[in-house]
C-alpha cells in the first residue's frame, strides 16, 4: 500500500477533523476554506496519478463489523473514473460553496461545520466501495442540509425543510428496502456488500428476471426521490428556493448526483431485464421531467424557483442517458452530471447574491442589472447559457452525447426530449431578460457590482471548469469511459 492509497481516507477525514477544530474554537471560515482547498489539491493529485486501466484504484480497506455467514461490513474506499469525476465536482463545488458563504452569519461555527459535513458526506459516498458506507455517507450529508435550510434558510424555511426531510427520508427508506432486496437476491455464496465482489458475483450468476422486476422499481423509486424524478420532485424547487447559498449549491450541485451515481453503480449494470420490463414507465417519467417540468419552469415568476425547476428538468436528460444503456449515452449522462453540478452551483450562488443585493427574487421587480452590475450579470449569463446547452460549455457536450446515445435505443423518446432545448431556451432567456436587461427598477437602482476577482473568484472557478469541459470534453470522457464500458449492459 503506497501513501497514495491513503489519500481517499485523507479526503474523508479532513473535513471531520476540521469540524472538530472549529467546534473547539478555531476560526470557522478560515479553517473551512483551508480544508476544502486542501481537499481540492488532494483530488487533483489523485486525478493526475490515476492509472488509465479500468477498475478501482487507490483502494484501502478497514474491517468493521463481521457477522460470519450473514454479512460483513468493511470500510473500503477506492476510486475509478466515474468516482474521480464526481470527486472533482464535489471538491470544486465545496470550495465555491465555502468561499461564497456569508462572512457574518449567525452561529458561525455551526454553519461552517454543516457545510463541511455535507462535503465530507458527499466525498465519502463517492469514495465508498461498500454499500453500507455508500448509504451512510449520503445520510451524513443529508442531515446538515436539513439543518442549514431549517436554521439559516430564507422565506418558508420551515415548510421547505420539513417537506424536504419527509421526502428524502421516505426516499432513503425505499432505497434501503431496495438495497436489501438487492443484497439478498444475490446467490448466498458470493453475497457481498463490496462493489468489486458484487460485480464478480453477478457476472457469473445474474439476477433472475423475477428478482429484477422487483428490484428495478425499488431502486428507481428510492434513488429517484433523491434525484427529484417526477412525480417525486416537489421538494426540490421549494427547498432550493429557501436554502442558503452553500446548501443549495452543495445539494443541487453535488448531493443530487448521489442518486444518479447509485443508479450507475447498481441499477444500470445489473438489471437489464428489469429495464426492459419497466422501460415505458421510465421513459414516460423522464419525459415528464423534461417536458412537463419544462413548461412549469416557464411559468415561474421567482428567479430561485425558476432555477429549482430548471434543475429538476435537467435530471430528465440525465435519466435519458442512463436509460439509453450504451456507453455513449452513459458517458453523456456523467458529463452532464458534472456540468450540471457546476452550473447549478454557479446559478444558485449568484441568485442568492442577487437576492441579497436587491432584497427580492421576483422577476417582475428585477431588471436592468446588466447596467448596474455588469460583472455579476456576465457570470450569471454564462451560467444561464450553460444551463440551456450552449456549445463551449460543459452541459452542451453532455446533452449532445446523451441525444446521440439515446437515439440508438429510443428514437421516439429522444425526438420528444430534444424539444427540451427549445423550452429551456425560452425560460432561461426570459429570466435573463427580466433580470438583467431593460430599465433599472427600484430594487436594482442601488446595486453594487462585484469588486473584481476578489468577490468573483469562486464563480470564476466554476466557469473555468465548465469551459474546460465544454471546449474539449475528451479529457473527461477519457477519464470516465473505461468505467462506462464496464457499466453499460449493451
Amino acid at each position, binding site marked *: 500500500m503506497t501513501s497514495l492509497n491513503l489519500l481517499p481516507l485523507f479526503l474523508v477525514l479532513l473535513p471531520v477533523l476540521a469540524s472538530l477544530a472549529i467546534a473547539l474554537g478555531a476560526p470557522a471560515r478560515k479553517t473551512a476554506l483551508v480544508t476544502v482547498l486542501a481537499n481540492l489539491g488532494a483530488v487533483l493529485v489523485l486525478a493526475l496519478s490515476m492509472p488509465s486501466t479500468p477498475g478501482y484504484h487507490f483502494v484501502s480497506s478497514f474491517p468493521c463489523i463481521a457477522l460470519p455467514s450473514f454479512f460483513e461490513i468493511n470500510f473500503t474506499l477506492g476510486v475509478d473514473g466515474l468516482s474521480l469525476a464526481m470527486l472533482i465536482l464535489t471538491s470544486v463545488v465545496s470550495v465555491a460553496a465555502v468561499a461564497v458563504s456569508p462572512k457574518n452569519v449567525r452561529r458561525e461555527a455551526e454553519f461552517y461545520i454543516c457545510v463541511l459535513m455535507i462535503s465530507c458526506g458527499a466525498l465519502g459516498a463517492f469514495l465508498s466501495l461498500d454499500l453500507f458506507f455508500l448509504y451512510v455517507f449520503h445520510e451524513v450529508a443529508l442531515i446538515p442540509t436539513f439543518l442549514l435550510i431549517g436554521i439559516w434558510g430564507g422565506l*418558508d424555511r*420551515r*415548510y421547505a425543510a*420539513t*417537506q424536504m426531510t*419527509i*421526502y428524502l427520508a421516505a426516499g432513503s427508506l425505499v432505497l434501503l428496502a431496495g438495497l436489501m432486496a438487492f443484497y439478498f437476491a444475490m446467490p448466498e455464496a458470493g453475497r457481498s456488500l463490496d462493489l468489486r465482489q458484487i460485480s464478480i458475483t453477478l457476472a457469473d450468476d445474474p439476477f433472475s428476471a423475477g428478482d429484477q422486476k422487483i428490484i428495478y422499481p425499488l431502486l428507481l423509486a428510492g434513488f429517484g426521490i433523491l434525484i427529484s424524478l*417526477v*412525480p*417525486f*420532485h*416537489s421538494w426540490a*424547487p421549494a427547498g432550493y428556493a429557501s436554502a442558503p447559498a452553500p446548501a443549495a449549491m452543495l445539494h443541487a450541485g453535488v448531493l443530487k448526483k448521489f442518486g444518479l451515481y447509485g443508479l450507475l453503480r447498481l441499477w444500470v449494470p445489473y438489471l437489464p431485464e428489469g429495464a426492459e420490463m419497466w422501460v415505458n414507465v421510465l421513459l414516460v417519467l423522464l419525459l415528464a421531467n423534461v417536458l*412537463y*417540468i419544462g*413548461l*412549469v419552469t*416557464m*411559468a415561474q*415568476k421567482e428567479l430561485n424557483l425558476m432555477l429549482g*425547476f430548471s434543475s429538476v428538468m435537467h435530471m430528465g436528460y440525465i435519466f435519458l442517458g442512463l436509460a439509453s444503456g450504451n*456507453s*455513449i449515452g452513459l*458517458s453523456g449522462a456523467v458529463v452532464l452530471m458534472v456540468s450540471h453540478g457546476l452550473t447549478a452551483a454557479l446559478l444558485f450562488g449568484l441568485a442568492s447574491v442577487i437576492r441579497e443585493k436587491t432584497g427580492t427574487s421576483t422577476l417582475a421587480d428585477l431588471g*436592468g442589472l*446588466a*447596467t448596474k452590475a455588469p460583472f455579476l450579470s456576465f457570470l450569471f449569463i454564462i451560467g444561464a447559457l450553460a444551463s440551456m446547452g*450552449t*456549445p*463551449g460549455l460543459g452541459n*452542451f*457536450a453532455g446533452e*449532445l*452525447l446523451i*441525444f*446521440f446515445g439515446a*437515439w*440508438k435505443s429510443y*428514437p421516439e423518446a*429522444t*425526438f420528444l426530449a*430534444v*424539444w427540451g*432545448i*427549445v423550452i429551456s*431556451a*425560452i425560460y432561461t*432567456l*426570459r429570466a435573463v*431578460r427580466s433580470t*438583467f*436587461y*431593460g*430599465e433599472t427598477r427600484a430594487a436594482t437602482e442601488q446595486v453594487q457590482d462585484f469588486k473584481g476577482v476578489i468577490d468573483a473568484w469562486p464563480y470564476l472557478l466554476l466557469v473555468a471548469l465548465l469551459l474546460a469541459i465544454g471546449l*474539449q*470534453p*475528451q479529457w473527461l*470522457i477519457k477519464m470516465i*469511459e473505461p468505467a462506462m*464500458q464496464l457499466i453499460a449492459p449493451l
Partner: protein
Amino acid sequence: MLITVFLHPLKKVSVFSSIAACAVSFAGSVLIFAQQGQAKLSALEWATLPGLKITIGGMADPLACLMLLVVTGVGLLIHIFAYGYMKEDPGLSRFFAKLSLFMFSMLGIVLADNLVMMFIFWELVGLSSYLLIGFWFQRPSAAEAAKKAFVVNRIGDFGFILGIIAIWALFGSVHFDELKQIISSRPDLVNAIAPGVLTLAAFGLFMGCMGKSAQVPLHVWLPDAMEGPTPVSALIHAATMVAAGVYMLCRVFFILELSVSALQLIMWIGAITSVFAALIALQQNDIKRILAYSTLSQLGYMVMAVGCSATTEAMFHLGTHAFFKALLFLAAGSVIHGLHHEQDIWKMGNLKKYMPITFATFLVGTLALTGFPGLSGFFSKESILFVAYHKNIAVFAIGMFTAFLTAFYMTRLFVVAFLGRERTEDVAHAHESPKVMTIPLMVLAVLSVIGGFIGMDHYVGHHAVEHDAGGYGLVMGLSILCFLLGTGLAWFVYHQAEEEPCQLSIFKVLRDKFYSDEIYEMCLVKPQAGFGQSFGSDRSLAGRWFAGPFEQHHCLRWR
C-alpha cells in the same frame, strides 16, 4: 490559423485589433483562394467513444473558399463602417468584442469539416446574433427581439440536431468526407434505407436552415432583429449569418439529393418565402424593415435554387446578394446616422441633395437588387430563374412575380426616401457621413456592379441545367420586362406622393405582415400562459398527492 487570430480580440478588446484580425483573415482567405487547394486543418479529438467520433477540424474546399472570401471581405468593410457608426456609443469595445465572436463562429461554420462542429458554431453564431441584437439591452424592444431571435433559431436547431443524429445513425459518421465516401461507395447501404427515414433526416437538416435563413414559417425573428445596430443588420442579418443556412444546404447537398421529396419541399418553401416576404415589403415604412423583408425574399430565392438542385446558382446569388444587400444596409445606416436615428421613409425625402454619396451608392444597390441588366443581381437572379424554368414552371412563375414585386418595393423605397421633397424639417439638417463610412460604401458599390462578371462556375461544382438547354432568351426577356414593369409602376404611383397612396384594406394585411406574429401569439404564447396559470405552482399533481395530506397539520401550512 484564422481561428487563433480571432480568439485574440476577445481577450484584448479593442476596435483596431478587431479590424486588424478581420483584415488578416481576409488576407488569409485570399491566400487559400489563390492556392485553390484542399487546405485542411489538423484535427483534434473533441469526443471519441466507441461508434462515435467527433473531431475539431477544418477544411477549405472551393465551396468554403468562396464563402470565406464573402464573409471576410464583406465583414472587413462592415467592421470599418461600424467604427464610424458606433464611434460615440459608450459600449464600443463591447460591440467589437461581440462582433469578433460572431466572425469567429461564422468562420467556424464555413470551415467545419463535420456536422457536429458545424452545429456547435451554428449555435455560437446564434448566440452572438442574440448578443448583438440585444446590444442596446436597456431598450425593452431590443431585449425582446434578441430573445425572439434566439428562441426561433432554437426551433430550427432542434430539427438540425435531430437530423445530424439521424444521419449518424444511418451512415455511422458525422464527417463530410466520410459521409461522401460512404454514400458514393455503398449504394446498397443507401438503397436499404427507407425513403421516408431519409426524407425526415434531410428535412431535419433543412429545419436548421429554416431557422437561420428565416424561411416561412420560422421567418418571424428576422424583421424584429433590425433592433440591433445597423452594421449588425448588414453583417449578420443580411450578408453572412442568414446566408449560412443556404451554405449549409449546399454543404450537405449530397445528402439532400438522396431524397427527391425533401428537395421538392425545400424548393416550395423557398418559393413561398420569396413571394410572401416580397408582398409584405410592399407596404412597410421602416427603411430597415423593407430591407429585412427583401433579405427574406432573396434568401427564399437561394433556398428555392437549392431545391432545384442548383447549388452553384444558389452560391452565386449568395455572393452577389451579400455585396448589394450589405451595401443597401450600410447606406441605410448612413441615412439613419445622418438623420439622427430616423427610420421612417415617409419622414425623409430629397436626400440626394444632402447625402450625395449615400444617394449614389444606394442607387447602385437598388439597381443591383432589382435586376438592372448588367449589374450583379441581374446575372445571379437570372441564373436561378433559368434553372427554375426548366425544373418547375409554377415555381418559375412565382420567381418572376417576386422579381416584379422586388422592383416595385425597392423603387418605392428609393423614390420616397431620396427623391421628391423634404417631408420634415430634420431632413434639411441631414449631413453626409464621414469617410470611414462612405469608403466601404463605395467599395461595395463597385463590387455590386462587377460581382456578376466574376465567374463562379468552376468553383462550386456542376450546373443543374446546361446553358444551351434553350429558353435562355425568353427568361432574360421576361425578367427585364418584370424589372421595367415594377420600376415603372412604382415610379408612377410614388414619384409625387406625399403619403402612402395605397389605402385599400388588402394593403393593410400586407402592412400587418399577414398577421404572422398574431398567429404565433394565438397558437403558442396564449396556451402556454394558460398552462402556466393552471400548473405554474406545480401543486396540482405531486404536491397534492404527497404533501397534501401533511398539509392539514398547521406546522406545514404553505405560508
